[in-house]
């Protein structure tokens, strides 16, 4: 079997961005080498909450999210598996009138991007979701959204890409990146070298270290989100549910998998680093989640949690990713720093980046995510995170 060290495109990082880009590049007949430090989909792509939601995203991300949505619906056809996608909707909850008002504004604006949200009154919430707490006074439902299993999605893209001919090297740590003449060169810890005229950096929280090697430093910070899963209970929940809050502490989200366990996340992030393979879990955040769950869905608090976990995620100051061509180096592309909201959008990023790399253009607007926004001292204002 051939094991080339040269391809059309070199992808650095095998999360959902890199793996799906590799897959869609192969669909276009482009040869691909993907280098992954550990295993495909093991970092942020594999340990996140599993929200497949467009609702609540910045409006500038909605075209990409809609594109991703269409890919998610085609997973069985594309990959031969569905990554446990449950299209039971994404429900945002408001605790007060102010939150309800914000959801209404968002629903109005999102409609222009083709995202239809159903605003639910207090009475409607009570009757449809009787397990929610009395503080919840309004909701916004994105009926087409839902949730999936993050442990399965990125590896499924990776395996499908490999079946389609991509050369995926796991347990391959890149020590340095450079461009020699026309080719990019990745030198690995084990001494192997790979080259290609085009390169995509999709290495999540590690992305800033990579972009810095091309004189494009970005102010990425590393954070660990925090999840927990309960023992199973009868299946009653349906949609993926989150609180539309203005503070991180109140921003709890949860979903129920088909076999009954409740997965929850939110309420805080640890100061993670890219050094250890696994991010630390802060017991204090778990306790905050317990308190917040008592407000949001008291029925869940009859249960025990059986496992907690965190991940290594890259956050940008404006909460927008770094995506698109390099501003300094022709042939270089980026797709990293998705600020804890990359899972749903991932397959759309992959399809878009593959299109951009293969054809030189895409109709999906990605200009707001350009790394060039950090090229000047004036930086974009810090925006609010959305659940």
């Amino acid at each position, binding site marked *: 079997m051939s094991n080339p060290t040269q391809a059309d495109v070199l992808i650095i990082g095998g999360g959902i961005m890199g793996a799906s880009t590799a897959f869609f590049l192969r669909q276009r007949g482009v040869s691909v080498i993907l280098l992954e430090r550990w295993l495909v989909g093991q970092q942020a792509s594999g340990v996140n909450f599993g929200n497949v939601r467009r609702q609540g995203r910045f409006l500038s991300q909605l075209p990409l999210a809609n594109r991703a949505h269409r890919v998610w619906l085609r997973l069985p056809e594309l990959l031969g598996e569905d990554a446990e996608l449950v299209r039971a909707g994404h429900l945002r909850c408001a605790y007060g009138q102010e939150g309800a008002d914000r959801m209404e504004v968002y629903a109005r604006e999102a409609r222009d991007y083709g995202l239809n949200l159903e605003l639910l009154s207090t009475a409607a919430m009570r009757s449809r979701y009787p397990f929610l707490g009395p503080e919840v006074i309004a909701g916004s439902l994105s009926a087409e959204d839902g949730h999936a299993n993050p*442990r399965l999605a990125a590896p499924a893209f990776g395996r499908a890409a490999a079946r389609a001919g991509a050369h995926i090297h796991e347990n391959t740590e890149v020590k340095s990146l450079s461009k020699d003449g026309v080719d990019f060169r990745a030198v690995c810890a084990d001494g192997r070298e790979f080259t290609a005229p085009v390169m995509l950096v999709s290495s999540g929280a590690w992305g800033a270290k990579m972009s810095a090697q091309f004189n494009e430093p970005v102010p990425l910070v590393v954070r660990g989100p925090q999840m927990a899963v309960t023992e199973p209970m009868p299946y009653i929940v349906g949609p993926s549910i989150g609180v539309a809050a203005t503070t991180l502490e109140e921003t709890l989200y949860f979903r129920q998998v088909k076999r009954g366990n409740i997965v929850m996340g939110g309420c805080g992030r640890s100061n993670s680093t890219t050094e250890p393979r696994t991010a630390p879990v802060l017991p204090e955040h778990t*306790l905050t989640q317990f308190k917040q769950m008592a407000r949001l869905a008291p029925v869940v608090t009859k249960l025990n949690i059986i496992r907690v976990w965190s991940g290594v995620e890259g956050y940008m100051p404006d909460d927008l990713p770094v995506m698109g061509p390099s501003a300094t180096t022709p042939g270089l592309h980026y797709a990293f720093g998705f600020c804890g909201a990359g899972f749903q959008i991932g397959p759309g990023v992959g399809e878009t980046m593959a299109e951009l790399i293969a054809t030189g253009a895409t109709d999906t607007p990605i200009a707001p995510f350009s790394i060039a926004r950090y090229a000047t001292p004036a930086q974009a204002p810090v925006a609010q995170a959305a659940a």
Partner: protein
Amino acid sequence: MAQPGVIIIGAGPAGVRAAEELVAAGLRPIVIDEGRRDGGQIYRRQPEHFTRSYESLYGSEAARAQAVHRSFDALRDKIDYRPETLAWNISEGHLHVVSDHRTEKLPYSALVVCSGATDRLMPVPGWELSGVFSLGASQIALKSQGCSIGGRVVFLGSGPLLYLVAMQYLKAGANIAAVLDTSRLRHQIAALPKLLARPRLLQQGLSYIAALRKAGVPVLSGITPVSIGGSAEEGVTGLSYRDAGGAAHTLACDAIALGYHLRPETQLADLAGCAFRYDDETRQWFPQVSMEGRSSVANVYLAGDGARILGAEGAENAGRLAALSALADLGHATDAGRVAALGREQARMESFRRGLVQAFPWPATQAAALPDDTIVCRCECITAGELRRVVNDMGAHEANRAKAFSRVGMGRCQGRYCANAGAEIIAHAAGVPLERVGRLRGQAPVKPLSFRTREEQS
């Protein structure tokens, strides 16, 4: 604020002896224990006001059990004892403990982890039926509640506990259908030189077998379990096995005590960041620990069966050694001669331990032969076939990856009872050495944690 003190986790033989050393040095350690009473598993004390005698509860170990209990009773007002308290997490030099839904964050200058062991289990088709217990659980039922697990019990597996618990059941008047050991007589004979390191224990083991036989209990070695019969409604009704010669047999019973010696309970050592090593002889992972009880992490000490399966007596020594190491590292004067003597004693225990490993080998090949429809992970109801599928079709050759794809080890027990066998199945299906499969990473909480848990307001 006062200097953080020393915390001992576990009030079994290792924890009690560690506490004793620390108190002798003038310290007042915190002793965290999940149990309602001290004693750990092997010296588990019956509930207050129960009145069975030491002799009937602990047999030949009555004097040792009583000594450990008396020592602990004498320590009670010199330590900060917290029974019915779960150590559920460790973060940045703090132990997180929960009791009655109140959680507290305890800083420590030294942590002595005496977390003990649980049964090491190998699935057999039908082991998910009600009526199947681990050997340890069978012993607890008897010791703590005076109950047998059934009216007609089969003891199945291998290891010293198989004969010890069967003997205890016999003495308690229970009806034993058979004692079926997967190890072969030649294993035991080959192990004799090492087992002679502790002649009293060897003698005891042999006497158990003789007593069982004398009472008319069939005691067979070299058997291969085939399946446990029964149904979800009626539970266990029988056991099919092959004898050493390969002939098939079926035995009627309504309960099965199952176990293949022990596995260390390592979740806390893992959460503390301790390094682990693969042990080829037993085909499992142990935390790295020196003879003196030092782990790879400064100020974290490991003792007892949670670090190395040396049994209760070895645990007592290890507890003392770990406490003396902690004291030395905290700047207290310790007696080097005593440490050396305890170390020599441990070397003898270690020789015996290796004899047991040789005499009662973990039946790794059974895992490879399990039919596809056998449940491996009982918490999540995942079969051997499903685990093999993620290895063969999804390329999951590593334990955590196979867990992520298949859910084996993802349930309430966090892999305590399926990880060993699961790893064997993965290694066989992937055609890689067991060591390469790795081990499941520990994740908090150590045991299920209620949503009602709130922080202690101090």
